[in-house]
């Protein structure tokens, strides 16, 4: 299976990355090579195999709902690119 320039455009939009026209070809080629390499997985019979999402068994972790100290609003916003009224500020979305 190969990856076309159109595929790259579609994936890039899903991934929220602006890929300029002159870079589409390069990504199509390198992604295509990797996708071709992972095609080898199709040759294995995995019909009755359960998927592993974590190697070590994990489950819900519960703890008492106790208030503890954490970062203050001010500390958290100190890393913000733009902040206003105690919140992170983003460009205007709704007119």
């Amino acid at each position, binding site marked *: 299976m190969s990856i076309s320039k159109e595929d790259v455009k579609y994936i890039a939009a*899903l991934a929220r990355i602006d890929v300029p026209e002159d870079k589409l070809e390069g990504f199509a080629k390198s*992604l295509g090579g990797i996708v071709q*390499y992972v095609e080898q997985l199709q040759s294995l019979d*995995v019909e009755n*195999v359960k998927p592993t999402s974590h*190697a070590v068994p994990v489950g819900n972790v519960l703890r008492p709902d106790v208030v503890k100290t954490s970062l203050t609003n001010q500390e958290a916003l100190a890393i913000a*690119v733009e902040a206003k009224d105690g919140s992170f500020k983003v460009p205007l979305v709704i007119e």
Partner: protein
Amino acid sequence: MSLHQLTSHALLDLIRSRQTTPREAYADVVARIKAVDPKVKAYVHLAKSEPNFIGEIPIPIAIKDNLCTKGEEITCASRILKGFHSPYDAGVIERIKKSGGSILGIVNMDEFAFGSSCETSCYGPTFNPWNLQCVPGGSSGGSAASVAADEAMWALGSDTGGSIRQPASFCGIVGLKPTYGRVSRYGLIAFASSLDQIGPLTKDVKDCALLMNIISGYDERDSTSVNEPVPDYTKSLVNDVRGLKIGIPKEAFVEGLDLEVRRAVEDALDLLKKMGAVIKEVSLPHTPYAVATYYIVATAEASSNLARFDGVRFGMRAQPASTRKNALLDMYEETRAKGFGDEAKRRIMLGTYALSSGYYDAYYLRGQKVRTLIKNDLDEVFKDCDVIMTPTSPTVAFKVGEKVSDPLSMYLSDIYTIPANLAGIPAISIPCGFSKSGLPIGLQLMGKAFDEEMLLRVSYTYEQNTPWHLKKPQL
């Protein structure tokens, strides 16, 4: 011998017998950094403030650029995180500070740990102290190079597919990836959450045990942290392998394995056999599929983890000049376009593709199923083996620039290290010789889950009977 040339345990002995002070040792290592780092380029920046030197183990340490350290700029060697000064300490950093550890600075890595050579860093590459034309390995290349060049007494790195072990091997030092859940990932900027583990890079096996004692243990802030008692790892430093069973997978000694690496690993095997270990040929039939599985599972998790870097909360934000879609979407897309390097974009897109509608079953779900097969292979072998031994990497360190334009050949550098991450088991790389060209060769031992002790015991025995860990690069 200068203080910076010592192992951490030797330095600790001098401090405890009052022959030197933590402050003096710290200053000596900083002087070493200033002398040789212009050549090696292991450090991204030195720590902003001097530590307090109070604690049981006041040893100077280097920290990988993906471990949140309060007040320091932590960027994962990516432009997108430039300007992010961590407001808190990672779980391991808290433990280091509590033990008296003094942070020297933040060391280089491949961008977001995507790489095996340290070349994808936005700061430029780190160089191998044994040959400055070669890569130090990656992604924890700065961690490994700083320790090998005596620019740090020891270092912390992270390992998702070999990122501690492969650079340890390339730089001739010891690197351990602990069992998944042994060390808290709280404050580690995530790459692939089901594979990532933090671990030590050290000058010898005893230092590895000491650093494991400091960083291991339960942390409720990491929901995958395992609440099991932590042994005193220095008790595993036993010079004896009599009767221990070492499995040698036949799949490991195939085409693509450098002859010198093969010979060094076979010599190590002979030595351990002479010392009383029982060698067993075993089979891990699905390991040839490990790299393909990894590049589905790891990139899928990465594409999701890296979605948080969008210019809203941390790091850089692009200011689009004109409107294409809408102001917010344009800002996301341009920030990510300018902030991520090409390899990061490639992996995010590959993971996005593997998770996208219509391809999920064929790629991601299938990858997770093959992961089960690989894990089952290892479980089966460990029913009758104490450790499994392979080379750490199929080659010694390669030249800077040699593989950077061919992602697939770079990925194959991790062919021996990836299975341990997929199965969650611990694995260590220790020096086992040198190539004719003078580059270090590494040997990998994999163990059962939570049996780091067995890895340390076999490694310690091998190390005590070989001279490799005593050699130093000339800088």
